[in-house]
């Protein structure tokens, strides 16, 4: 193999091995739950594939491990071994080792010899502890009839790896020319490979010596001696049954693999197209040429279609990250001595790859939290009259322009009183603030940095990283997170995420003669306010709108002092509303949001910039930080 070849093989190898690894882990969990006995077939197939690929790449350590695992899987499949949690632990330990090795292979590191020795030993001990696997006997085939009888003696290459198979092929080839009367040793033993270097076949055939010699020759056959013999007693021939013909459906290649970087490049080009389409539209407006407008509207349609198509290509099903979660739940639950039924729904809901990447860690965190702190130990649950097994549900669904992910447990819930005490102890709230805080406000404290109510920090949930980081991550994906909880009944986290981040609908407004874009998903309404509806409340201002008092912001620190205006835009985020004052509303537009350059760093109040058609650079308001 050339270096280039090796690189290509390795990429393919790692990619497909990871798929198989994941398949083994997930089906092991299904197997353990006892829900589906066919899971073992899937596991077996994947382990086998992994083994074959590893052998081909010369990754002996990996191959040996897979081989030993396969032996155990075989025992399970034959019903000679029972699936116990201990066995599943061992096998999951093996899958972890496989994953580590794949990481090393991907990074171009070698695999140290002997790293899987302990696991292989444990697997062997396990396999030997089970009753012996007797190979299913395969019926022998003997045939007969009248033509001349020949003795064909065949010697095989001592290097021949599978002499049983080679012998069978020779027998089969000879049988095509005539009828096999007998073999020495008998066919059963030939098929089991129980013979030394050579064997004799007695065959009745009209084909002649030369044809028989050719039929018996082949790879790994070193010598063939054919001689005429006297006929012997015949036996009835036996044919193997044949499957009926399957309908010959035509199949074309349906999928191709594309490097994700190329997709990103393509996405950038589409974004440029969107921007320049806007520019062309402005020019067209200026000159008003009819033919030009027509052509432009055609291009506009194509660009929209292309953009939508690009978006959908970048979408991947949530399964990609959901799939690792059952394992996390199992390990965490086992560590904590909890019993949990984990239900996942809506794994086929799709999200943009970039959103998906950011979502993985927060989701993991919330799930672990639910197991660590949400669901009570089985004894406590029983004492509270609940089933021993806690229920943890993860659901995802598409709702209009958003993807909603819910993580719901039926555990102890979050006690607002405890939060109240804790907030005061930690100096997050003053005692009088704490007294007045509503339940929702208290629960929202969970998202404050350094706020944790759990009495003990378990080593699985990890310390330091809290829900504040989770919220920050979700918000950086332009999503929101919400908690609902009821003491004794459980807790529900709701994540609302845009399926994609790059292209959004915005409302263009002018504030103090400067343009500014507001994501349409944050806009509730545009309202006119009479001056007498605006009141000073403490240091800020509020406006009475539809029987609701909303905080009013003039954004003077961002845009400078604006002339008087009575146009308000009502914004909402996470169910909380506020108003901003604008000069006027320009309209609604689809734009590409570019993140701020790292040189500028994060800039409070601004989530990015966009370039509408006229080439102007317009800031996009970050509503999260306003409300």
């Amino acid at each position, binding site marked *: 193999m050339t270096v280039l*070849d090796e690189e*290509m*093989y390795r990429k*393919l*190898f790692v990619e*497909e091995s990871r798929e198989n690894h994941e398949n083994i882990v997930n089906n092991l969990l299904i197997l353990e739950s006892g829900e589906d006995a066919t899971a073992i077939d899937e596991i*077996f*197939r994947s382990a*086998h*594939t992994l*083994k*074959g*690929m590893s*052998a*081909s790449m*010369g990754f002996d350590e990996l191959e040996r491990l897979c*081989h030993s695992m*396969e032996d155990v899987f075989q025992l399970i499949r034959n019903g000679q071994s029972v699936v116990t949690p201990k066995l599943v632990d061992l096998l999951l330990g093996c899958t972890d080792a496989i994953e580590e090795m794949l990481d090393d292979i991907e990074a171009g590191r070698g695999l140290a010899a002997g790293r899987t020795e302990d696991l292989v030993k444990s697997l062997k001990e396990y396999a030997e502890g089970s009753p012996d696997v007797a*190979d*299913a006997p*395969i019926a022998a*085939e003997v045939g007969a009839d009248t033509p001349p009888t020949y003795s064909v003696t065949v010697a095989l290459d001592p290097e021949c*790896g*599978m002499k*049983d*198979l080679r012998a*069978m*092929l020779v027998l*089969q*080839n000879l049988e*095509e020319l005539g009828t096999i009367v007998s073999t020495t040793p008998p066919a059963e033993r030939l*098929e089991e*490979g129980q013979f030394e270097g050579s064997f004799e076949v007695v065959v009745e055939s009209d084909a002649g010596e030369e044809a028989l010699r050719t*039929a018996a020759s*082949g*790879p790994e056959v070193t010598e063939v001696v054919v001689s005429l013999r006297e006929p012997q007693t015949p036996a009835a021939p036996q044919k*193997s049954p*044949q*499957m*009926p*013909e*399957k309908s*010959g*459906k*035509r*199949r074309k290649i349906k999928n191709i693999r594309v490097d994700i970087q190329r997709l990103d490049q393509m996405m950038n080009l589409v974004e440029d197209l969107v921007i320049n389409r806007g520019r062309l539209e402005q020019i067209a407006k200026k000159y008003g040429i009819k033919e030009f407008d027509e052509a432009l509207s055609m291009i506009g349609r194509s660009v929209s279609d292309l953009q939508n198509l690009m978006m959908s290509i970048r979408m991947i099903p949530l399964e990609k990250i959901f799939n690792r979660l059952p394992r996390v739940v199992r390990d965490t639950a086992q560590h904590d001595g909890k019993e949990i039924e984990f239900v996942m729904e809506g794994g086929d809901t799709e999200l943009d790859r970039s959103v998906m990447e950011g979502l993985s860690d927060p989701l993991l965190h919330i799930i672990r939290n639910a197991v660590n702190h949400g669901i009570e130990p089985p004894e406590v649950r029983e004492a509270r009259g609940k089933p021993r097994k806690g229920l943890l549900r993860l659901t995802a669904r598409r709702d209009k322009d958003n993807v909603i992910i819910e993580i719901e447990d039926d555990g102890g819930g979050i006690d607002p009183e405890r939060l109240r005490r804790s907030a005061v102890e930690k100096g997050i709230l003053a005692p009088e603030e704490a007294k007045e805080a509503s339940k929702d406000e208290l629960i929202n404290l969970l998202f404050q940095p350094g706020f944790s109510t759990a009495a003990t920090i378990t080593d699985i949930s990890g310390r330091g990283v809290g829900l504040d980081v989770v919220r920050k991550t979700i918000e950086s994906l332009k999503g929101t997170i919400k908690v609902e909880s009821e003491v004794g009944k459980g807790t529900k986290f709701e994540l609302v995420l845009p399926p994609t981040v790059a292209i959004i609908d915005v409302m263009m407004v002018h504030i103090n003669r400067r343009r500014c874009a507001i994501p349409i998903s944050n806009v509730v309404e545009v309202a006119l306010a009479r001056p007498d509806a605006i009141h000073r409340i403490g240091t800020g201002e509020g406006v009475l709108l539809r029987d609701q008092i909303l905080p009013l912001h003039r954004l003077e620190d961002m845009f400078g002092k604006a002339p008087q205006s009575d146009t308000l835009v009502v914004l909402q985020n996470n169910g909380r509303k506020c108003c901003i004052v604008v000069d006027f509303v320009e309209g609604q537009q689809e734009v590409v949001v570019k993140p701020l350059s790292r040189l500028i760093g994060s800039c409070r109040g601004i989530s990015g910039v966009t370039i509408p058609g006229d080439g102007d650079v317009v800031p996009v308001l970050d509503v999260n930080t306003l409300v």
Partner: protein
Amino acid sequence: MGRILIVDDTMFMRTLLKNILFSGGHDIVGEAGDGDEAIAKYQELRPDLVTMDVIMPKVNGIEALKAIKSADPSAKVIMCTAVGQEQMVKLAIKSGARGYIVKPFQAPKVLEEVKNVLSSA
């Protein structure tokens, strides 16, 4: 030299085998990722030889072999096998497989087996 259809559920193995067969001057007319696809591709392409993996999702190699053989009794199919799969391959040979190659593939052995089966009647 023959027109060959490669059947294996991993692109990795197919690529490996393709390169070996190509180096032997053979023409790879198609690839299939499972048994169903193999049966369809066989009908469509009528290759001189098929290399058939044993363990595959949906329809496995043995069933695919049987279906191909019953549609075309003269079909030449070589099984791709590994240590531990002898029983399955025995079944395959009884169902009409003409040869076998062992993973990890060794190019000279693969080419010899293919040549032998192609030249047989």
